[in-house]
């Protein structure tokens, strides 16, 4: 059973938490038009890497707050735990973020306002 360091409550047993799956899946904005297949990248496609994985956790039986974590799926080591809405800072987690296939998808591009070129992805 994993020991998870809730940023609000401290280290607690895994049974107190719910894993919310892959983090940083940006939700396409309604103002942008994308195809059904492109929308499916957001809706259905999930990463399942062997190694560093950025995922969301919720301390359901505790403070009920969501946070992000970078976890190695092979060793179960938590490399970094960071706030919802922020990006990881450690090198391994940053690399995992940058190299994720999702970064190149149309659905992620559609999560940014149509006219602007900068801006954060909504779901982080």
């Amino acid at each position: 059973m994993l020991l998870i360091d809730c940023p609000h409550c401290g280290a607690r047993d895994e049974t107190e938490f719910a894993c919310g799956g892959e983090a940083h899946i940006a939700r396409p904005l309604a103002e942008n038009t994308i195809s059904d297949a492109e929308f499916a990248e957001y809706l259905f496609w999930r990463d399942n890497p062997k190694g560093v994985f950025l995922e969301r956790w919720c301390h359901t039986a505790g403070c009920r707050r969501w946070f992000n974590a970078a976890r190695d799926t092979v060793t179960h080591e938590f490399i970094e735990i960071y706030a919802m809405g922020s990006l990881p800072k450690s090198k391994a987690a940053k690399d995992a973020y940058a190299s994720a296939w999702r970064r190149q998808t149309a659905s992620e591009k559609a999560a940014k306002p149509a006219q602007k070129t900068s801006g954060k992805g909504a779901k982080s």
Partner: protein
Amino acid sequence: MNIKSPKQGQMRLSDGGRINRKNPVSFRFDGKTFAGFEGDTLASALLANGVHLVGRSFKYHRPRGILTAGYDEPNALVEIGQGNQQAPNIRATEAMLYDGLTAKSQNRWPTLGFDIGAVNSLLGRFFPAGFYYKTFMFPAVFWKNIYEPIIRKAAGLGRAAKDHHDADRYEKTHRHTDVLIVGGGVSGLMAALSAAGSGARVMLVDDANELGGWMLSENNTTIDGKPALNWIKQTVKALEAMSNVTILTRTQCFGYMDHNFLTLAEKVTDHLPQRPDHLPRQRMWKIRAKHVVLAQGNHERPLIFGGNDKPGVMMAGAVRSYINCYAVLPGRRAVIYTNNDDAYKTALLLDDVGVKVAAIVDQRPTPSSVLVSQAMARGMVVHTGHAVLDANGTRHVGTLKIAAINPKTGDVTGQPFYIDADLVAMSGGFTPVVNLHSQARGKITWDDEQVCFRPSDYHEAAICVGACNGVFDLKGAMTDAAVGGAMAAMAAGFTAEAVMTPAVDEPSMVMRPHVLWKMPSDAVKGQEPKAFVDFQNDVTASDIKLAVREGYHSVEHVKRYTTNGMATDQGKLSNINALGILSDQLGKPIPEVGTTTFRYPYTPTTFGAIAGRDIKELFDTERLTRMDAWHRQHGAEFEHVGQWMRAWYYPIDGETMEEAVNREVKKTRTHAGILDASTLGKIDFRGKDAGEFLDRLYTNMFSTLKIGRCRYGLMLKDDGMVMDDGVTTRLGENHYHMTTTTGGAANVLSWMEEWLQTEWPELDVYLTSVTEEWSVTTVSGPNARKILEALGCSVSLTDDAFPFMSYQDANLAGLPVRIFRISFTGELSFEINIKARHGLALWQHLMKAGEPFGLTPYGTEAMHVLRAEKGFIIVGQETDGSVNPHDLGMSWIVSKKKSDFIGKRALERKSMALNNRKQLVGIKTEDPKAIIPEGAHAVLDPHQSYPMEMLGQVTSSYYSPVLGHSVAMALLKGGHAMKGQTVWFPMINGKKPIKAVITDTVFYDPKGDRING
């Protein structure tokens, strides 16, 4: 000596041992009464009485005896206890004896001595390696009529108690510790001294009845110039005196999971004749340790020869245990069979206590240690470069066939000869216990020098010390453990020092076993005697060879094909021998063959300990409404809805369920009904963006809702499928009250929190679950208004003053309430919310005021009929996660104006609008009395051949007492375009298919006139 009848066993020595001779006890085994002493295990007491035959083997029902003296015992599994305290598969070598203990042997029929199943031995061809897999390939009829009955008889170990209500109590407990030490032998004790000296919280756990481990079985070792037992006693005393040390005996660590989470099973009262009420029988400990020290020692390996499973064949070390710990002689005339020096200690001890050592058979061509010389000096015959080929004897070993061999190839080189013996003490080398280390994903490495695997890399914060780290000599092990204990404490954040290793004197020995994986035999190829590798699973050396011949080369495949190392034993004794044979067959060194995964649990653990107190009424929370007592007083039957207990129906005067429900439905439609709706999920919304958030959550618009008005909403997941529904009311400018389904309340709240926290954190919205703040009573039916008026309501209830889908704060019977005019029955309805604690009072007021108006309590079943008559859906019944609003015929609720809501884009997918999607329709049977079972599938032609082309399934189906016919809803492919068509519902068990016609979903009051009473 105070001996009560029956007489103590004839194989008991007159003195010595760690038993309490002052407390003789009697016990029963297979109906016979025997005597033993407190401090005995069942195994030692049986051996003291000359009983070796204690069970039959798993597959061949071969007679089996006691092989070891500890938890690694594969053979001597027995049933202990009676009635609802009976437990199967207890190792006799672990079961502490108490007065009145009752044990039975397993796997035998009709008696242990004469077992019909032993015929299986003669039917050996039925049970070669992989027989399960091969058997499955036969035609089904063979399986059912021939193989299954045989296998059923043969398979399985002990029986669970016939009475399933376990009389014993179990507990679970959690503990954080700095250092957990698994294994209380000399190494564990040394590690504990070092770790505890630092001030760290230390837990020291051992499976045995007392600390000391293997050293309790040795008689020729001194520490600090005194017998080792003195040092153990003194060290245990020192540790017990330390407040930061917790010692648990009879406690087996059986699991090692991620992040240093370990599970222990403590046998609290298993060893007691009377189990005190205040103690659980067993306790499961869940430990989170900063650092773990594994000091579990090693397992002695058997040697592989024909008949090596016969009663009387024992591990050489176990023989020393029985003599030194229990003062029991396991035989009168012994042969030692070994490939290392350690077994010579057994030879010398046997000689000390007067057992004739008929011969020492040593595979090694030129053994030359002090121990060997000592044995020879005492006149023992040592056959070097020899092997035991076969052990004969029916229920006990009698004669051994021995021959000279080529020590490298194992080929028999000499003329075989025979020696009589009733005890064979064998030693095939030593295997460090790396099981838990491996379970925790630590790596192991092959040690060619010591011929064993030992730990290399750690995955968790842990360290292996002593023999389980491959350090076999006592002084080395103690030093290794002292250092390991200190390192563990330091890793846990303490300043620690390794304690000094005391002076140690033990016989100098060569522990390294001679390597010969091939089984020496002079038999014709293919007719070698059965030589067991895995005793518990009845896997022989030839099974492994057969698996290799049949193409199984991967160690994991061989394990599954032969079942070697599976089941409760998990290969404790057999692993290395199996790998050795495999490596020999494949011509590959062992490290290249690899090893199998060590699985959880390390030793069998009772389900009782794992379940603890989480059984019966404590298994899950039961939630009751404030009106629960009233429902019970009035004879309600209940149903579970999620964790809630809801009144299902209220039978009167012996009514059947059908009669009661029909009455409740009719009365509600003609007069009035009252329902306890307190279980509905209720969520309070506040914040300036509450309306905006609701717009994004629901398919329809809520921000435009006027204060004091209610609106029904449908919630989708982002894939466009219906997730929940309910009525939301605007209580104030930035204040809403949402209701959800009873079962969906917790999910909906978490789901909304997720969107607020992860997707739209900029929204100013606060959600609070208020489900249990409010008791909710629904009064429904044409007389509903009159009843509330009769009770004295502070607000006007007329349609103009209080229209449908509106809400008002009011006083009812002098109590402050929130009244919502909403309806789930289609009748005039008021849903009255009151502070939870007043719920019962209000209910009773309403019942009284309603009496002249025919007010009838109705349960959830009538509620379902009432809503089904109106075609109202229930999420989770009409929907299953693959149903969108269009499928339900509810396109009207999907806003076209809103730019976004959860599920909007997904609903626009082409696949969401296909005509052949399953769509919700009404179903009316031709026979008005026929009620189609929910889940029944619709077909167009009931006479078509199988598999029939199915259109979809019935989701709700009831009899409507008001309409006089059944009503049903179904999800049918393209159903919306099929209204008026006939469909059939084929039935099972030869019943005739039910004919029905597709209709609209609203059966009752389609124009909705009754909503205003």
